[in-house]
Structure formats: C-alpha cells, structure tokens
C-alpha cells in the first residue's frame, strides 16, 4: 500500500528525521559561528570526534540528557511541546504549520463577572443556601 501523508506524519521515522536534523542544524550553525572544528567541538563537549561525526551526519540517537547538553552547548534551549496527532494531521491538510513564539506571561489575573451581583448594603445580613445530597438522602 502506498504511503500517505497521514501515515508519514504518524510515523516514527518522520519525527526522528526532524529531531536528528534540527540538532544537526543548530550544531552546524554553532560551529560556523564560532569557527570550531569537529575536534574543537568534541573537546568542548567532552565526547569523541566519532560521536560528533555521527551527529553531523544527522544520525544522533542517544540519551535525552545528551540532547539537552548539546543544545545548551550551542546556546539553545530544547523547547519541546506536544500536539494532538489528529489535530496536527488535520491542520497539515489545511496548510497550517506549527511555530514556537514567545508570548507575555500572565500575571495577577483579575476575573470580572459579566453578570455582576447586586451589592449588599452595609450592615445587611448575607445568607447562603446550600444544597447537599446528604441532606435529602
């Protein structure tokens, strides 16, 4: 059976290729920017040159802790977010892509009711009615 776009987006291989080559991209960029050789990078990261070569072939397949270490060494944070797979496929079909961008953190949120309750007069008694399933049982 022929591979469909949905099968592809739901495949392990698709996401592995994305993660491996995004990592390759940031490391390559970091090396160019800082004029580093593979040996320099291996030394900075305290890994072997062969390890660096593997990453630069887009074939990183190691521990999460190493992925974080590599990202941080390139002055990047490895932002990870998870999206519902069917929603992702649906949006892909609509031509929508996902981007990461910063938004302002919410602070001291005040909720205002759309249906304000009448204010009690000073000194007035306020009574509450409770309904409980225990009371009627």
């Amino acid at each position: 059976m022929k591979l469909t776009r949905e099968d592809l987006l739901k495949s392990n291989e698709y996401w592995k290729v994305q993660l491996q080559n995004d990592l390759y991209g940031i490391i390559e960029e970091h090396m160019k920017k800082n004029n580093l050789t593979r040996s320099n990078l291996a030394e900075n990261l305290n890994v072997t040159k062969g390890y660096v070569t593997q990453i630069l072939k887009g074939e990183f397949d190691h521990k999460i802790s190493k992925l974080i270490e590599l990202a941080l060494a390139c002055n990047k944070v490895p932002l990870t977010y998870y999206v519902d797979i069917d929603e992702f496929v649906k949006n892909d079909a609509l031509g929508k892509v996902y981007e990461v961008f910063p938004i302002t953190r919410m602070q001291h949120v005040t909720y205002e009711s759309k249906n304000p309750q009448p204010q009690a007069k000073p000194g007035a008694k306020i009574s509450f009615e409770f309904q409980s399933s225990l009371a009627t049982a």
Partner: protein
Amino acid sequence: MQLNSFMSKFVTKTIETVIGRQQFKQLVIVEDKVDAIRLQQQIDKNEVEIDGVLDVYESNLEDKYKSSFRGMTALMNRVANLQSLPEEKFRDITPDKEIVKEYEIKYQDLRVYLIKIANGKLILLGGFKNNQDSDLKKFRALKRQFLEKGGY
C-alpha cells in the same frame, strides 16, 4: 511496467506526501503515442491516476525497506522546506559544466536522484546503495532525455 525511456514521453506529477516551500515532483514516463500535453493537464487537475517513477520505486520495494522509505520521504520534506540537512543525506552531485543541478538524497540503503526545476525539484529515479554507479548512469541518461524532450 517500466517503459523504455528512449521510446517514451515525459510528464510530471506532484508527490503528495511531500509538502513544503518548494514543489516536489516525480517524473512520469508514458508511451510515445500518448498526448503528453493533454495528459499533463489531466494530472494537474487530478483527473487521472497514473504512477510516476517514485510510485513505481515504492511499490517495488521489499517490506524491509518500507521504514527507510518513510525516512527518505521525511528527508524530502526537509529539502522541500529548505531545512538543514547534512551532505551525507542531501548532496549536490552536479558534474562540472552541467547547467541543470543534480542532487542525491539518501536514507540508509535507499537513494533518490533528482534535478532542479523551476520552483522546486523533480525526482527522476529511485535507487539503492549497492547499485549507485549503474543508477547514476540511468539517472543522467533520463535527465538528458527529459531535457531534450522539454518535459512533454
């Protein structure tokens, strides 16, 4: 059935599993008697279903290569979106003095050979790691014929 490309005409078809900033197409080889211009219009309007070289390559793959084919298609998506890829995965294989650019995408044992076209890439051949020399010869012969016949 793979037609002999010397006695054939060429049309192109969009690869539906690859979506990006660049168009990604595959070559479709048809018999010489076919009205290629009309067929191309029908393909573009989704009025006919016809297999291209990548479709034929995929359907002839043994089950053990299906996972690699998904990886290969993921790489094509990165190429189409102009995303970073190492030379080991996507490389320019254009010989000196060739005007139209040639590329190879590789994933594990699978290879795909493509050329640059206006607004994107066109896959001419799918191949294997252990058959690179012969696949490259076929690819360059197909490229020459495709360019000589002007696509249609």
